[in-house]
C-alpha cells in the first residue's frame, strides 16, 4: 500500500521553485529603497533528556524579532503524534510549518500501517525534508517520544543532519543549557529529577541568554501518557505598578477618559439600500 502524504509532491531532489521569484521580488523591493521583512526567529533555549521511563522536553517561551520581544508567551513544543513531540528553534514560521507537515504525514502513515508512529520515522521524515531544502528552512529541532521500541531523543539541524543522544540542547541558549546538563546528567534518572534538570537547563538559558526568556514549558512523555505542562514554571513576571504611594493614588493607571482622542473631522455616508428580497431559513435545531 503506497503511503499518501499531503501538501508535498515528492519529485525527488531539490525543490527551489520559488527562489527565482524571490530574488526578483527582493531586487524590486530594494530598488524602491525598502528592505524585505525579516523572518521572526525564536532566539530560544530548547532541550530534551531521556530518563528511566521516557523523555522530558523543555523550552522557553520568548519569540524575538531582532532584539525586540515579539511574543512573550509563545509555544515552542509542537505536537507530532500522540506519543511524539518536537521542540523548535530558529525561524518561527519554519519550525511551525515543518512540524505541522510532518505531523500530518505521520498521521496518514500511522493509519496506513495501523501502528503507533515511531520516533525514528518522524526523524527520517524531518531530516529528508530539511536536507531537500539545503538549510534554507531554518528549523533546528529537538524531537522526542516513546514508541514500541522505547524512549528516543533526536536533535535535528537545519541542513538535515541528526544526532541520536540521551540529552540535547538547541537554540541561542543551548550553551547555557548544555552546561547544566553536562554537570548534572546521569543515565536512568527518576521523573522528578529529570524534570528538575530540564527546568534548570532552560532557566540557565532564560537568565543568561538575551534571546530566551519568560516561562518554562515542559513535556513529559512516557509509555501511554503525555504531560504537557504549559507553563511548568513562570520564571518571570511583569513588574507590578504600584498605584498608591504613601496612601495617595498616583499614576500607574493609564486609562483614558472618553473624548481624550480628538475627533478632527466626521463624515457620514448613508448607504441607501433597497430591500429586494427577504428570505428566512430556519436553523435545524432538532
Amino acid at each position, binding site marked *: 500500500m503506497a503511503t499518501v502524504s499531503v501538501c508535498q509532491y515528492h519529485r525527488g531532489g531539490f525543490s*527551489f521553485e520559488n*527562489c*527565482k521569484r524571490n*530574488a526578483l521580488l527582493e531586487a524590486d523591493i530594494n530598488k524602491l529603497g525598502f528592505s524585505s521583512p525579516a523572518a521572526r526567529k525564536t*532566539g530560544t533555549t530548547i532541550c530534551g533528556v531521556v530518563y528511566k521511563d521516557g523523555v522530558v522536553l523543555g523550552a522557553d517561551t*520568548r519569540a*524575538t524579532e531582532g*532584539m*525586540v*520581544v515579539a511574543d*512573550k508567551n509563545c509555544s515552542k513544543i509542537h505536537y507530532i503524534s500522540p506519543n511524539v513531540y518536537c521542540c523548535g528553534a530558529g525561524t518561527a514560521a519554519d519550525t511551525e510549518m515543518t512540524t505541522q507537515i510532518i505531523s500530518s504525514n505521520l498521521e496518514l502513515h500511522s493509519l496506513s500501517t495501523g501502528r503507533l508512529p515511531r520516533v525514528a520515522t518522524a526523524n527520517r521524515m524531518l531530516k529528508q525534508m530539511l536536507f531537500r531544502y539545503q538549510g534554507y528552512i531554518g528549523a533546528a529541532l529537538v524531537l522526542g517520544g516513546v514508541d514500541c521500541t522505547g524512549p528516543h531523543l533526536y536533535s535535528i539541524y537545519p541542513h538535515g543532519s541528526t544526532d541520536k543522544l540521551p540529552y540535547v540542547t538547541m537554540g*541561542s541558549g543551548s550553551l547555557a543549557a548544555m552546561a547544566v546538563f553536562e554537570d548534572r546528567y546521569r543515565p536512568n534518572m527518576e521523573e522528578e529529577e529529570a524534570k528538575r534538570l530540564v527546568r534548570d537547563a532552560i532557566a540557565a538559558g*532564560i*537568565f*543568561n*541568554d*538575551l*534571546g*530566551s*526568556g*519568560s516561562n518554562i514549558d515542559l513535556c513529559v512523555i512516557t509509555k501511554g501518557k503525555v504531560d504537557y505542562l504549559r507553563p511548568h514554571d513562570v*520564571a*518571570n513576571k*511583569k*513588574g507590578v*505598578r*504600584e498605584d498608591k*504611594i504613601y496612601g*495617595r493614588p*498616583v*499614576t*500607574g493607571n*493609564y486609562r*483614558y*477618559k472618553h*473624548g*481624550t*482622542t*480628538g475627533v478632527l473631522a466626521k463624515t457620514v455616508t448613508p448607504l441607501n439600500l433597497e430591500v429586494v428580497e427577504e428570505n428566512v431559513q430556519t436553523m435545524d435545531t432538532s
Partner: protein
Amino acid sequence: MKEYHYTGPVEHKFSPYAFNGGTVLAVAGEDFALVASDTRLSEGYSIHSRDSPKCYKLTDTTVIGCSGFHGDCLTLTKIIEARLKMYKHSNNKNMTSGAIAAMLSTILYGRRFFPYYVYNIIGGLDEEGRGAVYSFDPVGSYQRDTYKAGGSASAMLQPLLDNQIGFKNMENVEQVPLSLEKAVQLVKDVFISAAERDVYTGDALKICIITKEGVREEIVPLRKD
C-alpha cells in the same frame, strides 16, 4: 540564484565599536530633575554584568546618563570629570548644567571623524533651580528638553513620555505640572514595560533624583531574563 565561488582569503574589517545595550531616561520638573537608567551591560546575546548603572554623578546638581559603547562611556565620563576639575580650579566655582552641556557638545564634536559611540542625556538643575534636561547625539548636537529617552529602548519609551508628560495627542486633559512622586512612578512604570519588550533592558533600574538638597538614588529590580 547566486553562484558560490571560493574567492581566496577574505579580509574581515576590525570594528573598534561594540554595542553594550542599556537605556537612559531623564525628566525635568519645576524644581527637580530625574536621570534613570537600567543596570544591564550586554554584548551580542550575552550579559556582561547585571549591575552596571549608566548614570554618573558629575556635580551636586548634575547627573549624566550614557549608553551605547561602554568603553567610550567610561572614557567620556573620565574626560568630563577631568574638565570639571580644571574649571573648578581656574574659575573657583562649579560648572552649571548648561555649561556642562555646552562643553560636552564641543568634546563630542572634537571627535567628529571617529565619534564616541555614546548617547548622552544630562539631567540637572539650572541656575534658577528649575529642572533641565539636555539630550545629545553621538557627535555633539544638543538641545534642552523637558524629557528624553535614549539608548536601546528609547523608541519604546519616548512616545509614552510624549503622551504622559507632554500631553500630546490628548484633548480635554487637565495639564497638571509634573510632581516628583508622579515622575518617579512614571519612570518606574515605563522601565517595567521596556524590560518586557527590549532584550537589552532589564535586571535593575537606578533613578537619580536631583533636587536642591542634592542627589538621591533609588534602585528598583526589573526582569532578569
